[in-house]
């Protein structure tokens, strides 16, 4: 395998995942929390593809494609919720959105 070994890719993946987790924990805007979630999902994808390369099997890439489809579905529902929240003229701040009303 030319270039860096698999563990370098895994290091990048771990750092990206930690960055995304930090964003989810610290940000208040639900839009940016969704963006940070995307970073975490992509960190998982990078680890899956790195292990797929190391094992020489395509199953990891299949898993990554499935994760991509699920992430797209998650974005649709998440953005739909955010638009519904803003149409009800509620603040786009996850610290203030604390109660559920049926």
């Amino acid at each position, binding site marked *: 395998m030319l270039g*860096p070994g698999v563990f370098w890719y895994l290091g990048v993946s771990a750092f990206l*995942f930690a*960055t995304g987790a930090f964003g989810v924990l610290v940000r208040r805007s639900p*839009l940016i929390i969704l963006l940070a979630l995307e*970073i975490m999902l992509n960190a998982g994808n990078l680890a899956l593809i790195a292990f797929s*390369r190391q094992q*020489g099997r395509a199953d990891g890439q299949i898993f990554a494609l499935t994760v991509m489809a699920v992430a797209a*579905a998650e974005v649709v529902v998440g953005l739909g919720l955010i638009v519904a929240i803003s149409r009800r003229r509620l603040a786009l701040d996850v610290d203030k959105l604390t109660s559920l009303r049926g």
Partner: protein
Amino acid sequence: MLLAFSAGNVATWIVWVVAAFACLASGVAVVTFTNPFYSALALIGNLGALAVLYLLLAAEFVAAAQVLVYAGAVMVMFLFVIAYLGSHADTPWAGGPSWQTLGAVGAAGAIFVEIVVVIGLSAGGRLSHSARLPDSFGSPQQIGRVFVTDHLLAFETTSIVLLVAAIGGVVLGAHAREDVDGLEEAG
């Protein structure tokens, strides 16, 4: 050792360093920018850099899908919603670091250390040598064949997940419109 200094190896290392640095820097930028629009643009850069890393890992089809589906379709949807809502500045670190920020840094650092330690303990010895690949590895042909033979159930389940998400998006949008109509009639 001959392989370690060949021209192809050096070129791959250079591409990897540039892509990995772009990936990490844009990831940090997404989390730290106060304007959601700039965060979304940084995420597009992050996805592009990740696609380069996928290419280096012989995952051509996944890299293409990443650029088309993610950096194309999903991020356009994000940018539309951000433009629709207007860019409200979100300033989590106004007025110095709070205990929440420090706690989040600690938690993120703990997650990073945990991942590295667990991977090192469970697979550390085996990571240095990787399998020899056929030329067709990661091509659309191979991915398609594996998808409809070994992983047919995952393929079909994905279609149902996407259908349910589409219906969910329509239902959420329809309810939001009713509420706005109700508010306007009452007011």
